[in-house]
């Protein structure tokens, strides 16, 4: 995919990640966390599943108490239209009802969804074969036409709605249907097509969508997912029942309730009071309270989200590579992880996370070394400079505290003064995504979730010249990323991306901070394993 055409793609993606509310839209469509037909293509480690979630064949097993499961998140949905939102919370709520063609396992590997076979055709298009027996909640069989309509409704503005997910599936040229088959062709080559379809693209029924009003579609659901909607209270709670006709067998849960409390301590209180079973984003200081109770435990997983401090390459003092490296030496990320996050984070050294396509295992983090930092600052000729770190308030786990800690450490260098400016997220994001790089902040904290598990999905928007949030213009890096887009051989592509990561590390456009953990509180009454992509799949939960 040539970078020239990327602008469109990337800018779109921005909205998905940084736009409206909620955490960055990470979760892919789901429904089936179990096995299902294992795909053939490119999914590594897909068999490394925990054995604990044996949801299959749970039908009729509910002899005793009904299995009522509650999930409490930070925020509720923004309407139930699966194709008209761009945030994680909505994705989680809608994802119980709708599914995509492909899916991911707990570790992020690609598995089958509504399509049980998928392949790349000779011309670079992708072909999905729909499974038999998948039906919408209203009883109608899933058809290839529904799939075509769904994809077109997402990517084309003139079909139904202007979807904020329009570019989540790549630059789609056209969708064609065959007998139980759907073929999607792209403009140019799309090396990560399956990654995209495993994360995005929920399928709706054409007739149902066309016959109902927008308000109705946002309050009701007719998907193919493992749960059916029983009660929707906007902004309060959503109640589900198992879809007994689900193609992969009905989930063990008899009644699922999803609700939200914006305060983490409230969520923990609810968990400990046994009012709910799964709570999201338990903050570090609450962890011991959960662990020491006998009703719940902490269950955490490294997420696909990284936190970093962006430094704009075209303004002083950040135009100096030495200065940027100095900043990386000045911040003691280990100590921040230890003290601010109570250890719930992994230090990073490159834009791509361990486990994602293109990760370079040979790069080590910049060591914490204030003296080296001072020396580099001196060398850069910016000694005595005053800088301001802008940070969003309350958007990422402990964001303000992290920014303040980092700024304090920079400030304690003898030759740099650093202050923190707190910004409301939506206004900061407006600046961060300003069309011209000249309008973007000089130095700011940002988080980025990579739902596709592919390094290019971080580096292209954030570090390529044309990226929607870039703070860097470097021909060498641009070249590597362009090459990666056009490379059809996966292994070769990995090599190129690894090289790009090394380059990004050396250029130090960011202060590389950490990889966030998703920290859940889980009731001891249930068994459930979290996923790496922040999606919650209660259909894999079982009663203990």
């Amino acid at each position, binding site marked *: 995919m040539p970078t020239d055409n990327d602008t469109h793609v990337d800018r779109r993606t921005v909205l998905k990640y940084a736009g409206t509310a909620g955490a960055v839209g990470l979760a892919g469509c789901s429904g089936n966390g179990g096995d299902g037909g294992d795909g053939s293509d490119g999914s590594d480690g897909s068999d490394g599943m925990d054995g604990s979630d044996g949801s299959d064949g749970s039908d009729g097993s509910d002899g005793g108490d009904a299995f009522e499961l509650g999930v409490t998140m930070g925020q509720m949905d*923004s309407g139930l239209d699966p194709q008209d939102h761009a945030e994680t919370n909505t994705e989680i709520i809608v994802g119980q009802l709708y599914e995509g063609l492909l899916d991911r396992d707990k570790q992020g590997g690609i598995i089958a969804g509504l399509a049980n076979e998928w392949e790349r055709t000779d011309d670079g298009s992708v072909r999905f074969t729909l499974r038999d027996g998948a039906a919408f909640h209203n009883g109608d069989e899933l058809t290839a036409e529904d799939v075509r309509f769904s994809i077109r409704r997402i990517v084309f503005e003139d079909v139904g709605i202007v979807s904020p997910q329009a570019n989540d599936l790549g630059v789609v040229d056209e969708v064609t249907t065959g007998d139980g088959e759907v073929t999607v062709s792209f403009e140019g080559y799309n090396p990560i097509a399956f990654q995209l379809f495993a994360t995005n693209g929920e399928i709706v029924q054409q007739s149902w969508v066309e016959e109902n009003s927008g308000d109705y579609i946002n309050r009701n659901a007719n998907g193919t997912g493992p749960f059916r909607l029983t009660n929707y209270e*906007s902004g309060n709670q959503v109640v589900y029942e198992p879809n007994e006709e689900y193609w992969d067998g009905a989930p063990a849960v008899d009644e699922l309730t999803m609700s939200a409390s*914006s305060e983490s301590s409230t969520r923990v209180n609810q968990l400990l009071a046994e009012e709910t079973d799964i709570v999201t984003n338990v903050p570090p200081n609450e962890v011991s309270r959960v662990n020491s109770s006998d009703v719940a435990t902490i269950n955490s997983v490294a997420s696909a989200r990284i936190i970093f401090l962006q430094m704009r390459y075209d303004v002083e003092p950040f135009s100096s590579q030495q200065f940027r490296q100095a900043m990386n030496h000045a911040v003691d990320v280990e100590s921040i992880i230890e003290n601010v996050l109570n250890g719930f984070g992994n230090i990073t050294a490159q834009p791509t996370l361990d486990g994602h396509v293109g990760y370079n295992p040979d790069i080590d983090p910049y060591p914490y070394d204030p003296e080296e930092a001072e020396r580099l600052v001196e060398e850069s000729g910016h000694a005595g400079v005053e800088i301001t770190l802008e940070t969003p308030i309350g958007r990422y786990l402990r964001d303000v505290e992290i920014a303040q800690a980092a700024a304090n450490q920079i400030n304690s260098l003898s030759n740099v003064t650093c202050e923190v400016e707190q910004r409301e997220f939506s206004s900061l994001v407006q600046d961060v995504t300003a069309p011209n790089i000249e309008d973007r902040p000089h130095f700011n904290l940002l988080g980025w979730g990579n739902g596709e598990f592919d390094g290019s999905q971080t580096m292209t928007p954030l570090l390529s010249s044309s990226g929607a949030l870039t703070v860097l213009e470097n021909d060498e890096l641009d070249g590597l990323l362009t090459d990666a887009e056009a490379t059809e051989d996966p292994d070769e592509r990995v090599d190129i991306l690894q090289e790009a990561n090394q380059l990004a590390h050396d250029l130090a456009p960011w202060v590389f901070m950490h990889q966030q953990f998703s920290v859940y509180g889980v009731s001891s009454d249930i068994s459930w394993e979290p996923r790496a992509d922040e999606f919650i799949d209660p259909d894999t939960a079982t009663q203990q």
Partner: protein
Amino acid sequence: MSFGRFALKRSLQGIGVVWGVVTVVFALRFVTPGSPINAVAPLDASQETRQAIAAELGLDQPLYVQYGQYVFDLLQGDMGRSYIRGQEVTTLVFERLPATVELALAASVVAIVLAIPLGVISATRRNEPVDYGATLLSLGGISTPNFWLGIMLILIFAVEFNVFNTSGRGVDVGDVALSVINAEPFAGTLLTWLAYITLPAIALGTYFMALITRLTRSGMLDELSKGYVQAARAKGLPRTLIRYKHALRNTLIPVITVLGLQLGTLIGGAVITEAVFSWPGLGTLVIESINQRDWPALQGSLIVIGTSFVLVNILVDVVYAYLDPEVVND
């Protein structure tokens, strides 16, 4: 002027104010930087897309047409569709309104039931320990931020003693009423309802309890020093009758007016109390809508809040006129 005419005149004035409220809310959009299209359109949307969206939302029309359309729709109960949720704002707002009303009413009940006797006792036992106690309590009450009080209540009752629920609404008060009406065993639902509403109601009600106590106390002191009280004593009326039938009644008339004006504070307090206790009311919707720039939802919420305020104040004035016939003649 007859009572009926007074009520009518007041209602007509109220309609004017509601119209003003609608206009101000509508105008708010135009004194805010940035186009409302930004809330809907993807950041990189092409000029054509933006125009298409503007046309879809009617934003391409001249201002007065948009305004006319908005008022016209509003008169038919249509407040548009949420930019973010895609749902009808009318439904959205009226789904949330009952929770807020329930909370505000519960808080008022807590406040009134405690404050009036406290104010009366304080006034009739002036400078006795109970008066000092009530004075300090009410002073603390009007000086405590309700969100902080809420957090402290959570700390004490929910965390230390684990007696009440700390967030959410539990059951709808309507369900409780329904089970009472249907003669079902309702103790369970009632207890659940209480477990959820008690702390938020106290957190929100304390300020008003303190305010009403102060107003009742000073009003009672004022009334008890008036000529008619002396006259009533001279004609041999028993003390209870003088206090409750004569003095308290006259005290409460101005108290009701002040409370009507303070309804705004009550709703404002409800917004923040909802945030503390995750109460799914209108306040939560307002804050979400602001953060998401969801104009239709924000406008709808503000109009409903403003209109409720106006309605309640008309009601207060009419009740006032009913209690104190002099008002009608003024």
